[in-house]
């Protein structure tokens, strides 16, 4: 209790300075007075009496000082003193403070941002109970591939394993869900019976699926995510009030998952897997599998157990199963494995970045400390221990570091939100990346570390000058130690090399982007809307043709609409491509017997007769062996008006017209590159092509037109040979369709009108709207994102290097004050002084640039895949970066150089 009482008394005294002072003064005055009286009484003279009393007391100031120390918190008080001093120092040189703070903000901000991503993606445990027990399983085939599981294999692993406490299969994908009469397309996941046991998470409202609901063809029921429940269903507690329809079938909502649960892959809706059919083939790899290890079992123990099962299944079923082993991996690793290396590299790079920032700040502070050498030496002479001076430096750098850190974290927060919006969706666990407590602790830790490191660096460097030398000012004339100067310049040169490499990279990528933008896509973007539809499975091909015909008619009649065309896929839209091999043949090659077989194959009656089927497939196999008449091409199902709407030029012949119906001759339009490739010397029109393997229709296609090439998959890949067919003649593969609507007026009236038309024709259809312009720019997203990242990094590195150059030059000028003073006194003009300083800076820069050019040339050659039609040693980029860098170096050295010219020789020399 005693120490507490004393502490409390001391704490109170922190704020009672004046009262305390008065008290002790009065008390000591009284003491001295009493002593003097005694002395007088024993016969001393007044002067002697006073002197003796004071001597015996031991020095009033000393006593007061000791008293004060006992009274308050000496540590706290001297720290407060240090802080006041530090702030005063910063106010005295605001330019330096600003540069130092910005440098630290950059370093801390970059580290915070990268660590946030690192933590959210890699370090943070998955939001499930005992996440270390959760694993993802794949089949392994004899080629080493890891396909998904088939139903029978899954069931066997489930039944025979000894190492898992629960295992479940699932798949996921967007599904059309209607609530009332509004339709949505949330990610829906079909999950098997033990899914809740594997995940370890129960619905927070309602219940899980019951056994009656988990069998084939049961009425669908759904469990819904928290956000879907709140935002779309309205959040009512009465689950029976929701009228949900999944793919047109009414489904009851039986449970709501807790907030934040959206496994797998941002799912919003879960249905029992069992209501869908079971696929008996062991090679139908339809399901992803997740499991929870039994308590006390780890992956190493589970692996042999599962491998045994795979091997026994292979032995039992032979060719019927392609699974030879089971691959097991922790769920965390499965979700984040592909980005782990990249993130680690990024983190290391940012730490490196921070180190450079810190050393730059040390130089900046040293530039200031050099001017304060005298003050520091006096303090040392007056008895300030090395520890006290160190504390002073650390306090100063702590103030800088805290302010810089605050800015840095704010910049990281702001920058991160922007960057994440741009980031490709392939970054896993993106939703878990946020600036939270661990990240802030990390940043704060860095701030403190920096403060201590910088402070110690400064203290060490300035204390190495002994007090006598500094007080004599002898060192001023000597100038800075040449070795130390050299070391600093080398450090600057290294930073400049890094900046150069980054700038060259950014420059090359920028030029690549410009080149990509100038690529002719083969169609006109302009002012065109797109509308995408999924056609439900139960719509047969004939009905599809009807539906699309009707849609086209109605869309074309809308006011303001100029042209409407469409196809199963649009150019530049990332999606599955349909391509395959075709054969050029003339109708004469098909015998009447073959024609009959083709007819029967269309009707579907060929499948029952294996002999005929063999004859049929043998005939085509024979054809495909003929190299000269064979070819590869993309297969595109489009509509009449497709080419006109997209403004794809027609080079020969005609396009699809009204006369191309399901009953007339099947026709095709081919792309120019295909025409050049297959028929370089003669006219392709009238040639017939067999491309039946794309949709099962073996009827020959007659080429009626040739159109210009289009960049189908991306602007950067070369245009591929394409065979276009009309959907009216080949509707079999049209499970989705995209319309392109070119209109003259404002797009909004067309949106709502089109939506009405679609809903009117079939309320199950959910149109998704977009624009050609958006699709076009979307294809550039990945490239733009990389460019942004590299540009940000190079800008940051450049700023850092410039701050470093400023610091080193300021320090050098401060050290050479005496020398410059002498030169000025001897008649050197301002411009001569400036040239002297700048020359040194430029020489360092030139050396760095030469190394930088070599380094860049080597590195860019390695990353050629990132460039597009730009040479990795593009002279324009290299020379532009060189000039820019020289300019930046001169700019950064300008201020210190100017300050050098202002050195008054009288003042400089007076300190001789």
């Amino acid at each position: 209790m005693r120490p507490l009482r004393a502490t409390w008394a001391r704490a109170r005294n922190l704020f009672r300075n004046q009262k305390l002072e008065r008290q002790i003064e009065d008390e000591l005055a009284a003491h001295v007075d009493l002593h003097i009286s005694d002395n007088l009484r024993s016969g001393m003279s007044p002067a002697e009496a006073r002197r003796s009393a004071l001597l015996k007391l031991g020095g009033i100031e000393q006593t007061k000082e000791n008293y004060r120390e006992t009274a308050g918190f000496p540590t706290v008080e001297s720290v407060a003193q240090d802080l006041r001093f530090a702030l005063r120092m910063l106010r005295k040189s605001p330019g330096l403070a600003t540069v130092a703070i910005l440098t630290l903000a950059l370093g801390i901000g970059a580290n915070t941002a990268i660590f946030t991503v690192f933590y959210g993606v890699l370090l943070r445990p998955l939001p499930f109970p005992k996440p270390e027990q959760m694993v993802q399983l794949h089949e392994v085939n004899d080629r080493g591939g890891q396909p998904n599981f088939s139903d029978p294999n899954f069931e066997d692993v489930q039944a025979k394993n000894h190492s898992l406490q629960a295992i479940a299969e699932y798949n996921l994908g967007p599904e059309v869900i209607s609530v009332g009469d509004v339709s949505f397309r949330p990610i829906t996941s079909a999950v098997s019976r033990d899914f809740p046991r594997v995940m370890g998470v129960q619905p927070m409202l309602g219940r899980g699926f019951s056994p009656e609901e988990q069998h084939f063809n049961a009425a669908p029921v759904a469990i819904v995510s928290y956000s879907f429940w709140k935002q779309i269903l309205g959040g009512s507690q009465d689950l029976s009030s929701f009228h949900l329809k999944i793919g047109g079938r009414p489904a009851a909502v039986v449970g709501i998952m807790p907030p934040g649960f959206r496994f797998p892959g941002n799912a919003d809706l879960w249905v029992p897997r069992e209501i869908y059919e079971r696929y008996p083939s062991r090679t139908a790899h339809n399901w992803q599998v997740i499991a929870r290890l039994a308590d006390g079992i780890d992956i190493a123990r589970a692996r042999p157990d599962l491998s045994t099962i795979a091997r026994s299944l292979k032995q039992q079923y032979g060719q019927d199963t392609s699974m030879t082993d089971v691959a097991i991996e922790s769920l965390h690793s499965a979700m984040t494995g592909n980005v782990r290396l990249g993130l680690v590299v990024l983190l290391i790079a940012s730490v490196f970045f921070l180190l450079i920032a810190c050393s730059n700040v040390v130089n900046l502070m040293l530039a200031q400390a050099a001017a304060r050498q005298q003050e520091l030496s006096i303090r040392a002479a007056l008895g300030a221990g090395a520890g006290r001076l160190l504390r002073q430096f650390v306090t100063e750098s702590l103030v800088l570091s805290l302010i810089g850190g605050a800015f840095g974290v704010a910049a990281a927060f702001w920058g991160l939100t922007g960057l994440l919006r741009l980031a490709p969706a392939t970054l896993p666990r993106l939703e878990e990346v946020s600036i939270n407590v661990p990240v802030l602790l990390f940043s704060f830790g860095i701030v403190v570390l920096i403060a201590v490191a910088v402070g110690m660096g400064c203290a060490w460097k300035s204390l190495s000058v002994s007090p006598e030398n500094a007080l004599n000012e002898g060192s001023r004339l000597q100038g800075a130690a040449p070795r130390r100067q050299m070391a600093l310049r080398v450090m600057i040169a290294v930073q400049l090399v890094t900046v150069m490499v980054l700038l060259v990279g950014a420059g090359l990528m920028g030029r690549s982007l410009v080149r990509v933008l100038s690529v002719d896509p083969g169609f006109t973007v302009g002012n065109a809307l797109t509308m995408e539809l999924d056609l439900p499975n139960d719509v047969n091909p004939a009905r599809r043709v009807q539906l699309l015909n009707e849609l086209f008619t109605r869309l074309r009649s809308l006011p303001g609409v100029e042209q409407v065309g469409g196809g199963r896929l649009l150019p530049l839209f990332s999606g599955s491509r349909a391509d395959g091999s075709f054969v050029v043949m003339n109708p004469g090659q098909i015998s009447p017997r073959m024609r009959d077989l083709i007819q029967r194959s269309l009707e579907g009656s060929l499948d029952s007769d294996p002999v005929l089927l063999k004859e049929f497939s043998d005939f085509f196999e024979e054809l495909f062996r003929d190299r000269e008449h064979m070819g590869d091409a993309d297969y595109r199902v489009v509509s009449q008006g497709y080419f006109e709407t997209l403004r794809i030029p027609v080079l020969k012949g005609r396009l699809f017209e009204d006369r191309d119906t399901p009953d007339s001759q099947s026709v095709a339009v081919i792309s120019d590159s295909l025409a050049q490739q297959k028929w370089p010397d003669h006219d392709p029109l009238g040639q017939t092509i067999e491309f039946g393997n794309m949709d099962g229709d073996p009827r020959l296609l007659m080429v009626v037109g040739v159109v210009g090439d289009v960049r189908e998959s991306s602007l950067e890949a070369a245009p591929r040979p394409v065979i276009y067919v009309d959907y009216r003649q080949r509707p079999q593969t049209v499970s989705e369709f995209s319309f392109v609507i070119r209109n003259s007026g404002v797009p909004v009236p067309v949106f709502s009108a089109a939506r009405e038309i679609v809903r009117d024709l079939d309320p199950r259809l959910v149109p998704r709207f977009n624009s050609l312009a958006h699709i076009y720019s979307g294809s550039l997203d990945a490239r733009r994102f990389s460019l942004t990242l590299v540009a940000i990094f190079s800008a940051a590195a450049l700023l850092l290097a410039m701050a470093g150059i400023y610091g080193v030059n300021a320090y050098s000028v401060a050290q050479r004050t005496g020398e410059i003073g002498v030169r000025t006194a001897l008649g050197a003009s301002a411009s001569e002084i400036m040239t002297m300083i700048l020359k040194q800076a430029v020489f360092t820069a030139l050396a760095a640039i030469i190394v930088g050019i070599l380094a860049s040339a080597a590195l860019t050659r390695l990353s050629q895949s990132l460039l597009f039609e730009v040479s990795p040693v593009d002279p324009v980029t290299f020379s532009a970066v060189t000039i820019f860098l020289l300019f930046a170096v001169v700019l950064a050295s300008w201020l210190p150089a100017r300050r050098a010219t202002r050195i008054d020789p009288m003042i400089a020399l007076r300190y001789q």
Partner: protein
Amino acid sequence: MGDHDKQDVWQGTLALMVLKTLHALGPLHGYGIARRIEQTSGDLLSVNYGTLYPALLKLEQDGYISSEWGISENNRKARFYKLTRTGRRRLEKETRDWEQTTAILARFLNPEEGRS
């Protein structure tokens, strides 16, 4: 050991002497306490009076003594210290401890007495 520890030991001893003085003489001002300590120690101790004041402050912080402003024999304002009940208990305990320590040490330093 070092200077710091010596200082602690000295401060402890000084504190004990202050408490004893106040116990014997009643309320007294700083100068009086210093004078009395010097006298009692038979002038063996010759220290700066200034060292007393931090010690008095610490004793007051710990609650062993209390202070009050009064009038000194010079008709001047002076601060008078007096022992508190806690202080008296502390004094008794410290005295006992010192006597015990002295006794133990005596046996060590004069081993012949132990043997006989």
